[in-house]
């Protein structure tokens, strides 16, 4: 009988200890010094990313991708809607910088299926968008190097290389000429240009890209749950 009693005492003592541990842990949460947390990546990583050159994609590659209808990327124009309406690249979608972090834009930018190539008139606005996206840890954002200014300089009206320049310069020039032809400012024959102008709606770019369906998005945010 006394042994049983002892056992009971012991077990009560144990439960008291367990309760104490629980309270201790819960109180620990209250007592722990608060420190501020932030979304996205660490400052040091951000600095490293802001320094790297890997974000740039040249206009030649972008032109090549558009011509070959590469499904692995989407062009995002971060300029204002008015500018976008005036002119943009074929198949580009418009996400003005002020809407860059909005919910709708999230479907396009925050995914891991296709590369997102940002561009603006030069690099500055697109770079702002790129830096913000990287701050939040989005992984597949790129910049079109030089923006639309560079695009016009290289693809639409490339500069003729000088005669003394190496052969590669001429090849590049020819490639750019050919690409320019695709984008509706070709040069060899008039009829060819005419037909291309008709078929290639550069002036009224397709607003919704065929390639990116937002539903396809691999959601990074918390999954649906529940019972």
């Amino acid at each position, binding site marked *: 009988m006394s042994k049983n009693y002892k056992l009971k005492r012991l077990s009560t003592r144990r439960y008291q200890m367990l309760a104490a541990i629980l309270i201790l842990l819960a109180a620990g949460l209250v007592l722990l010094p608060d420190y501020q947390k932030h979304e996205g990546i660490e400052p040091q990583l951000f600095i490293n990313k802001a320094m790297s050159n890997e974000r740039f994609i040249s206009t030649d590659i972008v032109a090549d991708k558009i011509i070959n209808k590469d499904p692995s990327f989407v062009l995002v124009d971060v300029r204002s809607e008015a500018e976008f309406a005036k002119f943009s690249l074929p198949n580009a979608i418009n996400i003005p910088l002020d809407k860059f972090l909005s919910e709708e834009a999230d479907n396009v930018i925050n995914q891991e299926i296709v590369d997102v190539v940002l561009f603006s008139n030069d690099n500055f606005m697109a770079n702002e968008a790129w830096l913000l996206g990287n701050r939040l840890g989005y992984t597949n954002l790129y910049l079109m190097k030089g923006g639309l200014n560079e695009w016009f300089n290289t693809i639409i009206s490339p500069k003729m290389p000088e005669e003394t320049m190496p052969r590669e310069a001429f090849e590049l020039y020819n490639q750019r000429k050919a690409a320019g032809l695709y984008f509706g400012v070709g040069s060899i024959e008039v009829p060819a240009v005419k037909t291309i102008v008709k078929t290639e709606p550069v002036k009224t770019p397709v607003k919704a890209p065929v390639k990116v369906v937002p539903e396809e998005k691999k959601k990074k945010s918390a*999954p649906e749950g529940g019972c």
Partner: protein
Amino acid sequence: MEKQKKIKKELYWNPYFGGFLLGLVLILVFYISGRGIGATGGLKGTVIATVDAVAPTHAQDSPYYAKFLEDEKSPVNSWLGYETLGVIIGAFISGAVSGRLKLKVEHSPKITSRRRLIFALIGGVLFGFGSQVARGCTSGAALSGMAVLATGGFVTMLSIFGTGYVVAYFFRKNWI
């Protein structure tokens, strides 16, 4: 001595130990998958799949079924479906280890098996209906919800257990 050992084997765990492990499982599922556990989700998948198999046109017309049939995947072939399967297997293992596997109807000696089964059916229908209204059952809404301090989890838990204590009097004959 031999007999004592056998009794010990058949004992249930200390509830605090069970609760502790359950808490660890919850932490683990949130840590790995970012979501809670659930039980009605798998059953809902079963219902939808059955309706879809028996009356496909009806399933496509109803907005509720269509919502779940949108995906190519079968509704049973979901996270909660696999989890439910796991629950059944896990419980079977535990029952086998502790020697509790037995086909029987558990009921108070004061009532018949028949009465117990009828009430089980009524209770099941109510619980199934209620779990869909509240968007989750005791494990999905209350337990997983409370683990992340979701307001809905607390409300559901209080609502279930509060009602339980209120109506306990009327069902006392079934249990005591």
